[in-house]
């Protein structure tokens, strides 16, 4: 037995499936990688192509919520160059699949029937994997359907997964433990929501109905009678994932059209609905050659509280920092500045936030914005590096910024990088303008 165990583990490492044989091997592997990253003279090295590849290889072998967190962090922290972010976003689409007998069992449990009895056709193998489930393709009455089935025990494992990933990821991405606790508590809440497919069904319907007027946008129809807490049935959408779509060399006109659609979609959600599809990674969008965009997976939705919403966007107002008193008040209210900060810290942080806000708000401050602008994104990456390596930030005892902002920042970050990959020029008029004017 022993010998076989050994051979198995080396084989699985080779094929990169080590995490399935046990979290233990995976943990060691990650530790090994994080050590290598930390011992590098300059953290900038981590951005090098070669290391990014290593990080990508190590992380793409994680599964479930641990993968999700690593994936989110790598994007949020700008650790991986764009090419890898896209590749990584799709890593979760190749997690080890649920066996067909378990799929059958899940169906019998929830619908008292097997997939074969319900559908005219049902793909026995999954056609795609989401982070907490997998997707099968089926046919019923001539209609193509996508059926998402959740892995068993996901909800129970989220807490322990996040606990396990905390020290490793913290070291890997060079984030302090206080910062990461701040981050993970919000993430845990969203992930738990994601395991509730009934809630997803409800939200999908609400948002897709409210956004039905936006041109060139497509949503699947959801089928309640074929859904349960662990199974979600919707229309099958055609289209390409971002990287495949870009490989088709779409014209600038089409890119702009798509970029505009996505921009309008997000702007409407954030400012009119005040709840937002907070998972804008490329895997959740399907692009068509004529410039239509399909949006799938409403598992991760962030509802914005009125009070937070107003403060968050007031601080994004152009030239807000000219009014020092109001700028400071908002920074304190949003917990970017803390009562315990010494005056030198206050001044230092204010300078940093001023620059960050000016940079991130730039698309809002003009009529149109060209997201293909490489220098703009290099500035953002450089900025996040400066911020991360800043001594005062590193020594901070508490996480900064409101918890609610984590997913909203993520949403904008994902939106910006997707528009950047598309190289789209977008008319960035926004419903937020009225809020700006109101406060002038």
């Amino acid at each position: 037995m022993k010998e076989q165990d050994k051979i198995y583990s080396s084989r699985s490492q080779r094929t990169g499936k080590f995490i399935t044989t046990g979290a233990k091997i995976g943990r060691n592997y990650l530790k090994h990688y994080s050590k290598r990253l930390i011992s590098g003279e300059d953290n900038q090295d981590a951005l090098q192509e070669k290391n990014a590849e290593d990080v990508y290889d190590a992380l793409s072998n994680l599964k479930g919520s641990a993968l999700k967190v690593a994936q989110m962090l790598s994007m949020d922290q700008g650790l991986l160059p764009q090419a890898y972010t896209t590749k990584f976003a799709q890593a979760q689409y190749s997690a080890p699949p649920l066996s067909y007998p378990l799929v059958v069992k899940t169906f019998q449990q929830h619908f008292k029937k097997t997939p074969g009895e319900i559908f005219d056709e049902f793909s026995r193998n999954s056609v795609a994997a989401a982070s907490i489930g997998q997707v099968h393709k089926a046919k019923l009455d001539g209609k193509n359907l996508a059926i998402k089935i959740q892995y068993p025990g996901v909800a129970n494992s989220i807490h322990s997964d996040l606990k396990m990933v905390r020290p490793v990821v913290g070291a890997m991405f060079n984030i302090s433990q206080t910062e990461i606790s701040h981050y993970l508590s919000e993430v845990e809440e969203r992930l738990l929501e994601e395991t509730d497919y009934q809630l997803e069904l409800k939200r999908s319907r609400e948002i897709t109905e409210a956004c039905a007027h936006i041109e060139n946008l497509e949503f699947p129809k959801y089928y309640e009678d074929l859904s349960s807490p662990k199974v979600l049935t919707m229309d099958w959408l055609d289209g390409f994932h971002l990287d495949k779509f870009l490989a088709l060399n779409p014209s600038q006109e089409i890119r702009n059209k798509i970029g505009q659609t996505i921009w309008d979609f997000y702007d409407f959600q954030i400012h009119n609905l005040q709840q937002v599809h907070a998972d804008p990674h490329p895997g959740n969008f399907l692009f068509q050659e004529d410039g239509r965009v399909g949006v799938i997976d409403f598992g991760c939705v962030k509802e914005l509280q009125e009070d937070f919403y107003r403060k968050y966007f007031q601080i994004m107002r152009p030239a807000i920092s000219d009014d020092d008193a109001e700028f400071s008040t908002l920074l304190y209210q949003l917990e970017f500045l803390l009562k315990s900060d010494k005056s030198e810290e206050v001044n230092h942080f204010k300078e940093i936030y001023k620059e960050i806000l000016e940079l991130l708000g730039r698309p809002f401050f003009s009529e149109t914005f060209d997201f293909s602008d490489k220098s703009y994104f290099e500035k953002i990456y450089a900025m996040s590096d400066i911020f991360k390596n800043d001594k005062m930030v590193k020594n901070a005892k508490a996480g900064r910024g409101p918890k609610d902002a984590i997913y909203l920042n993520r949403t904008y970050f994902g939106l910006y990088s997707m528009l950047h990959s598309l190289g789209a020029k977008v008319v960035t008029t926004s419903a937020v303008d009225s809020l700006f004017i109101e406060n002038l």
Partner: protein
Amino acid sequence: MATAQKKSSKKEVDIRSMIVEKYQENLLLEGKNPASVYAFCKDLNITETDFYAHFNDFGQVAAAFWMELFHKNIKALKGSPEWEEFRTREKLLSFYFSFFEQLKSNRSYVLLVLDHKMFNLKKGSSDLSELKDAFKNWLNQILNEGRSREEIAGRSKFNDIYDDLFWYQFLFLMDFWRKDKSLGFESTDEAIEKSVNFSFDLIEKNAIDSAFDFGKFIFQNR
């Protein structure tokens, strides 16, 4: 004539399952075996001859519970139109999933006997001895089919211990299920999935076989 025979055999089956059912109920309520076969039969309104036509003692009755479950399970599996297309791995997965699904409706009884008989992975329980033989038989059948389809690697002498190893897996899963506190026994589903995948990754053709093959080649060509 034929119908009469059919009737009587049906009646016998009825008595048989009646005995098993009553025995279970008795054990659940009293927590121990009936005082005697005599008392048991009186309770059930059958003669001792009826009882001994089917069983020699209560131990066999207890074993019959597991056998009924097993046969019902196999029958249900074979009734599914997809069964013949399944790979061996999927057959075993389906077996476990539906077996534990059926166990659910008998959970109190199973908990009682597996506790009561001091469930022990090494010694095994006498209740399960018939199940063990039937399971191993069936397993060897599907393993052989798997071998003839070249899904499973033939490894000469090792082939003979596979059925024992899978029996331990089955016991492990039963023990896991017994202690499972998760909602809807979700953790057992995971345990089944992971343990079956692990075992089949081992017994399907893999690096072990090419390593052995390569080693043999080098040895012979020195």
